[in-house]
């Protein structure tokens, strides 16, 4: 087995108003299906503890499930466990109409954290990041500047950002520029 590497191999920026770093590879599975189907609910519960409500993410330790659309979830597991998880899904959902695809390596994952992390995000995504509006457990499938991205808070003022692997460098540069020194907004 050859070592799998993430797009930017852990690049980080910490010379600004928030810190940005690329997180390593994360196991990710696109699961499409009927989110009210009993078998599917059971299978997802086994991973994330529950089915996430629309526009939220269900997190359990390192695993999780994020609501992507009325018939799509993004399942998150340790990178090494992806194939076995898909096998389990295939077995437990046998007979229902669904699709489980490994998209772990099609993604890059970043963390933006610090007291001004909300502002950094609010410079790039058309989302209300004020503490009253964007809370723990919320999940958005939106865009950051010119590329698609999904994000949520892993803890207060610490955002996890997921984008396509091909634009990892753009995303890192973008987040670093939005976090540049002296760019505090102090409005959220």
């Amino acid at each position: 087995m050859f070592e799998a590497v993430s797009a930017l191999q852990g690049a980080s920026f910490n010379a600004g108003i928030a810190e940005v770093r690329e997180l390593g590879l994360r196991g990710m599975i696109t699961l499409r299906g009927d989110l009210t189907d009993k078998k599917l609910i059971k299978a997802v519960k086994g991973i994330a503890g529950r089915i996430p409500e629309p526009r939220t993410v269900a997190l359990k330790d390192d695993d999780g499930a994020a609501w992507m659309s009325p018939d799509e979830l993004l399942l998150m597991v340790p990178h090494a466990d992806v194939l076995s998880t898909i096998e389990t899904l295939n077995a437990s959902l046998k007979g229902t109409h669904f699709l489980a695809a490994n998209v772990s390596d099609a993604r890059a994952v970043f963390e933006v954290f610090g007291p001004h992390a909300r502002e950094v995000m609010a410079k790039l995504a058309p989302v209300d990041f004020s503490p009253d509006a964007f809370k723990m457990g919320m999940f958005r499938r939106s865009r950051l500047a010119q590329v698609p991205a999904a994000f949520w808070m892993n803890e207060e003022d610490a955002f996890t950002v997921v984008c396509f692997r091909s634009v990892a460098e753009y995303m890192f540069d973008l987040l670093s520029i939005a976090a540049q020194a002296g760019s505090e907004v102090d409005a959220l």
Partner: protein
Amino acid sequence: MSTRLKTAGRFTDGGAQLSFDFNGKKLKGVEGDTLASALLANDQMMVGRSFKYHRPRGIVASGGEEPNALFNMGYTNTFEPNQRATTTELFDGAKIGSQNHWPTLEFDVGALNTYISRFLPAGFYYKMFMYPRAFWKHVYEPFIRQSAGLGKAPRAEDRDPDTYEHFYFFADVMVVGGGIAGLQAAKAAALTGVKVLLVEQTAHWGGRAPVDGGEVDGLPADKYVDNLVAELSAMENVTMRTRLMGAGVYDHGYTLGYERLTDHAPDIVGPRHRLWRIRAGHIVTATGAIERPISFASNDIPGVMLASAVRDYAVNFGVSVGDRTVVVTNNDDAYRTAITLKGLGLDVPCIIDARAGGAGALAEEAKALGIRVENGKAISKVKGGKRVTGIVLCAQAGEGGVLEEIECDVVAMSGGWSPVVHLWSHCGGKLIWDDPQSHFRPDSERPPLGAKGEGFVSVAGSANGHLQLAELIGDAHGAGLDAGKATGGKPAKAAIPEGAPTSEHPVEPVWLMPQGAGIKLLSKAWLDYQNDVKVSDVQLAAQEGFESVEHAKRYTTLGMATDQGKLSNINGLAILSDALGQPIPQTGTTTFRPPYTPISMGAIGGEAKGKVFQPLRKTPLYEWSDNNGADWEPVGAWRRPFAYLQPGESVHDAVNREVKNTRENLGLLDASTLGKLVVKGPDAGKFLDMLYTNMMSTLKVGKCRYGLMCSENGFLIDDGVVARVDDETFLCHTTTGGAETIHGHMEEWLQTEWWDWNVYVANVTEQYAQIAVVGPNARKVLEKLGGMDVSKDALGFMEWADGTIGGFDARVYRISFSGELSYEIAVSAAQGLAFWEALHTAGEEFGAMPYGTETLHILRAEKGFIMIGDETDGTVIPQDLNLQWALSKKKEDYLGKRAHQRSHMADPERWKLVGLETVDKSVLPDGAYAVDEGVNANGQRNMFGRVTSTYYSANLERGIAMGLVKNGPDRMGEVIDFPKTDGTIIKAKIVNPVIYDKDGEKQNV
């Protein structure tokens, strides 16, 4: 002369000394100054030359409405033209230069235009430059381009070193304008508990109230403002920003705010401007009002200013514009200027009030101070050249007969006040004409409407036509309260503030001064300072039939300059109405468009500059390729290697080497960008049968099939290889550019048309690094790496298998886009680089070399394979490319089938694909047309074909090409002409497009 007063200004009190550079002169200013106040403090009355006649112009206003004081600012890479002095805060070391003059501000050759002004009337350009026709291109246009524009454009080679950013913000209520009305409205809204954003374009809260005085709830206006600011600052649900202009209001409460972060102090670290992209539940515009100039002769001589501006410079900046100020007005407010100046010990020789009845209490106050007041009088003309030296007094009712000359160096004029209705109007708010106050104000019955039909903008204070503090403060309170309630706030019990009543006499409209001014005076009475439009120009436009205000605007250029006519519009349309003999509301206004004042291009672009100007998509092999000589080619947002250059090679050399090496040894291609879509479900086969023109449902598991996709109009949109993964699952390869669009295409059909079919699609393009291993040695290298059987028997042509190669989990497709023995191998993107390197190491003994997209193209063209985007351009159908074999006759339907039966699609005369072999072996230019005898109805040469792909083939040592030619397949062997742009002709023979290995023996070994 204009100078700094002993009494400090509100904004400059205790400010540090600053120095700045104006046209090379070192001048001094004070912290808190604007450029305008600093220039006036240095007795710099003349600040620029007018656009058309190059007349000397001075500062007129003290805010965003200023038409004249525009400067070139900064130098080299920070240079910017047309910076408004009245809204630019002074900083130490500022470097500014005046505009639109040559050679100097003091002596300008262009000023000669003023002597020929009667030959440059409105519409001059339209009349003059019509004939002779040929003169436009060669004489007129170059001349106009020379003289067009006020400021200089920045140099093309300079790069702005500053950064900019956007910021998304959401509020229940947004209040635009931080004057007393905006503050009061924000407080009232905030008391209902909703989230409030209050923005102010200047650096200071309070607007005009602290200058104009008055009382609210028994407190002087400035004290009341201080209290409001303190209260709002303490409220957690209120966000307050100065130096942030509400620039535009758009649908659904979307509002743009333009924040200037470092303009006042360029040494501050961080972005220069920030564009706020705001969603507000409700918007309250408390944008105030702008004083109007009066149209009298020579009202553009430096020293003629708005009365409010003269007052502002004295009170806010401690600057006196002159020693002797004549005030001319049609309303009571201007008296405040006279009283203020007198109080500072300056001379006010006369207040000229055009109203026969004069003013109310303020007149008594002025008279008590010993100021002479002349009622029913007017200015016949202003005397002076580069600055005012005096005025000629006359009766307002007459034609300008001289009564007296009064010496002065400043004329403070006030033609009444116009509410700033721009933001109200941006999204469709309507106006009504308020006859008693002689201005347009927002019609509260017809606001801009939101998604539910509700008004989402309201207006407060003087912007709403309430010019008296006593009315204004209650109006603002009510507007704020209503906005809070409209956005879900709870009605709050708050006392309605009360302003002390004043007794002012009503304004009387004075659109022309004196009322009966003749043409000689009219042609020196300026309406639009920035675009040099006079009263006589507007009258001429009306006379020539430009009755619509929008037409008259464009004909005369009234209000078309960078200030968008903030001072001139109402005066201009009053003159137009008068000339047309109709009331002003019938003439109406021109359209108010955002932004309110110009905002920087940098702010609009935001962070998108330099390395994040545009996202670049990179495959896992990008860095390796970049380190190994890749000459990059943009393919959509991707960058793909066009060729890999070895030291000393040209691109052409590299391509030729790659082409030969791949045919003779082993080529490796990064094919990761190809789209990969998983299509799964019980109806997946049925679905793909509809999408592809050929049959996919019959494909066996483990097999691959090439397929074509057409739009419902029959045109080819994509092609690629489909692999059947299992009974319910297919993997569809798309072109690089098609990955997202075909994914969207599939989703659209599934969501809108075949929503009851059980099919799911997922785009897994980026999950895999896909590498094409191509050439006679392809199998050898895979066998050397080992792990799975890739022999002909185990993995035949157009088959695929999962397995491991050299320890990598891989899916191997035995497909070929080159005509060679070829495998496309998908491994996970995270292992892509390791696998690529393993192939190179193992392949070294077999002559492995990477190849780029150009080699890919040449190899496929030698085989006559079509490329979406080369052979197709959105107008090409499969039949044109002789792909009838891929159009299923068994299927009842598929996208494009019906369209192909339309008469034009079935026309046998359509241009069809052929190979083209140049007689002299040269390379045809891409896109060249094959020409016929004669010309068409447009006088163009008749054509019957065009080149779609053309390359130099190193294998064949000559140019090869494909093209679409009328009746092409029936004309094999015929030699046709392709003229080049240099006039020469290339002759090419029509041949079979498959040039290399016609029987396909090489790929099937």
